[in-house]
């Protein structure tokens, strides 16, 4: 690949900086984030290169790739960055921008899990693990995934077949719809 000034969209950096409240330009590529990242081996671009590509305006490569979805949000990078770059927040911002672009990413399982997780909150107010796992397996076509764990957990009382709904569910629905409304009116990113 060749990077030319035509493909260098550095304006995008500003958007990421506003969302993440941290400086992207400040990174001087020391690589300490990648050195300590538990997920680096699973990523096609290690964390420092995600920032480097961003600095060069190559954001498409990032939001279409799988690195951002393989970030575990453990914040080791932010904690150890010698330069106070909050990389975990940058990752959040990038995922949001990728998510909003309706998932051009190759990594569909993590996105699916996230989607179901958020849907569960909207519908039930809380997370119901058994339901989450079951629906995930159906939707991802992995019907037998973790099948052996199920009965054991049920026997130990760790999977609840039934759950009570929150009494104030209408409030959570209002929060979701107000946020949707704000975004529609351009009042939030």
């Amino acid at each position, binding site marked *: 690949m060749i990077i030319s000034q035509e493909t260098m969209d550095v304006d995008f950096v500003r958007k990421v900086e506003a969302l993440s409240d941290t400086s992207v330009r400040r990174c001087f590529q020391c690589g300490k984030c990648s050195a300590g990242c538990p997920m680096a081996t699973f990523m096609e671009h290690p964390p*420092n290169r995600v920032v480097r590509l961003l600095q060069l305006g190559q954001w498409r490569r990032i939001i279409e790739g799988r690195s951002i979805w393989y970030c575990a949000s453990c914040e080791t990078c932010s904690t150890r960055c010698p330069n106070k770059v909050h990389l975990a927040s940058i990752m959040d911002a990038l995922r949001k921008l990728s998510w909003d672009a309706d998932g051009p990413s190759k990594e569909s399982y993590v996105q699916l899990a996230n989607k179901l997780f958020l849907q569960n909150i909207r519908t039930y107010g809380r997370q119901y693990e058994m339901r989450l796992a079951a629906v995930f397996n159906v939707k991802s076509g992995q019907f037998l995934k973790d099948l052996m764990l199920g009965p054991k957990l049920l026997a130990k009382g760790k999977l609840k077949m039934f759950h009570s709904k929150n009494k104030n569910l209408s409030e959570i629905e209002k929060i979701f719809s107000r946020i949707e409304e704000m975004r529609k009116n351009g009042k939030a990113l």
Partner: protein
Amino acid sequence: MSRIGVFICHCGENISRTVDVERVAREVGLLPGVSFSTDYKYMCSDPGQNLLKNAIQEQKLTHIVVAACSPRMHEKTFRKAVEAAGLNPFLCEMANIREHCSWVHENKEEATVKAVEIVGMMVERIKKNRVLPGITVPVTKRSLVIGGGIAGIQAALDIADCGHEVILVEREPSIGGHMAQLSETFPTLDCSQCIMTPKMVDVANHPKITLHTFSEIELVEGYIGNFQVTIKKKARSVDEDKCTGCGVCMTKCPQKKIPNKFDQNIGLRTAIYVPFPQAVPNTPVIDRANCTWFKTGKCGVCQKVCGPGAVDFEQEDRLIVEAVGAIVVATGFDLYTIDEKPKGSAIKGYGEFGHGKIPDVIDGMTFERLASASGPTGGKILRPSDGKEPKQIVFIQCIGSRAREKGISYCSKVCCMYTAKHTMLYHHKVHDGQAYVFFMDARTPGKSYDEFWRRSIEEEEAVYIRGMVSRLYQKGDKIVVMGSDIAVGVQVEIEADMVVLATAIQPQKGADTLAQKLGISYDKYHFYSEAHAKLRPVECATAGIYLAGACQGPKDIPETVSQASAAAAKVMTLFSKDQLEREPIVARVREAGCVGCLACKKVCAYGAIEEKEIRDRQGNLIKTVAYVNPGVCAGCGTCQATCPSKCVELDGYTDEQIVAMIEAL
């Protein structure tokens, strides 16, 4: 009636970018008393100064206001120009429209209005300016050098070689500083001791140098040309005049297991000791905290075996007062440590590297002592935990340096080079070993420096890995180094036998306290500030005080030596005259109104105020009044603010002048 000339400077674009200078010139031209006003791109340049001189003569100007930068920058320049044109220099004032206006504002309209007001104030003020006569004071042609490392040694030798007396004060028992600790030096690999110790001996033998080791600066009074310095000579417990340096006391001392700071605490010493065999002076000192005699009142072996009877348990700290005309500050540096810092401290440690608790994770200076032929291992690279030779060694650069998160943003400048040197020393001593270096980028500007670094990789086979290390931890007898290589984009994990950290250079502990005693300024890291970063790099803003070496910022040996010689040259410039011309900004007492309460004397920080008796012709005492010695007065104005009967006035800053400025607003 005064004919005031106002000269507005653009300062390139520094002022004109945010201030409409032509409009300022137009508007102040209309002020009463102003006969001439103009603007120019660089007023401080030769054509600018000529513009000023010609206008004085052609327009018959009597008072000058230059609206430009801070008076700290160019007041002298313009007063000199005014004097050359035949006016008293103190009839020229500067209006600061750069630091106080253009640099701190963005809105051009508002900045222009403010600039007009600043100039207007100075116009009103200068109408009240008086002609001030110059003051001359004698210069004491002796100098004080604080710090006996390579910087202090070089400065002291240069000044003394010019025939002037030098008082050299060192906090430790020996001079030599950090350079004496080094094994070999880049980029030539010559032995540090071999080039350092002869200079140390020169200091000891120089007839013009008085050496006070194990001593600290207690108090500094006075001003350029006339400082009074009180030096505390800490009790050495050994009489320097009687001691012959035979060393019998040290061989007999039963306390033999005290960590030696000079060997970075890996070597051991006795309670009565010299820090290293080549120490200057070769006079031991008793470490009272660890001496059996001082702890229990028993032992006294050293005293018994000392032939000349030099050991003196009763010795006390002594204060010495010296009069000097100039001071060179060369207090050097300290190394950053990765250990846990107190909560809320601006500087943080490296928890991810175990806070310094992994025994075989050492710093660069400790490696120097291991590699030094005179060090605790006799020059063998052996790890502190078990004395084994490390076969896999990892060097990590930029520890503390360039780490905003740890509280230090600057580059320590010498680490890239000394790490390259360490890989070479290691390769020369451990032939079957392998060195790895984690680094961000190699900063090697300097004569033969980059070639030296490349040699470490190409000939000495060090593996350089471009990337920092996230974590270090002990696993069995290995240290796991979790790093990355950003060029390949992979994690790099090395199980090392020893890890050497290139820790940041920080100013010496207590640098701030010393600065307060000297009245010099320092930055947020406590490095001392030079008067001008480019044009006055070895002078402090406080006249008569000069800087040499790493106390001003990280430096390598060649740079330190250059700066030390430069500081010495500045001292010699000062000593080249018998009399020093001083600014006549001094306080004056209106004797008629003075009631002699001497409140001013109590508050004067410079001891400039004396009592003066006023007698009639028959010699009868009429009254006692305060008198300001113009040679000593620093012009701070404290007496003026204190005087209850308003009888002290500071020349150049009289109440009348200040009120005129306020009224102009």
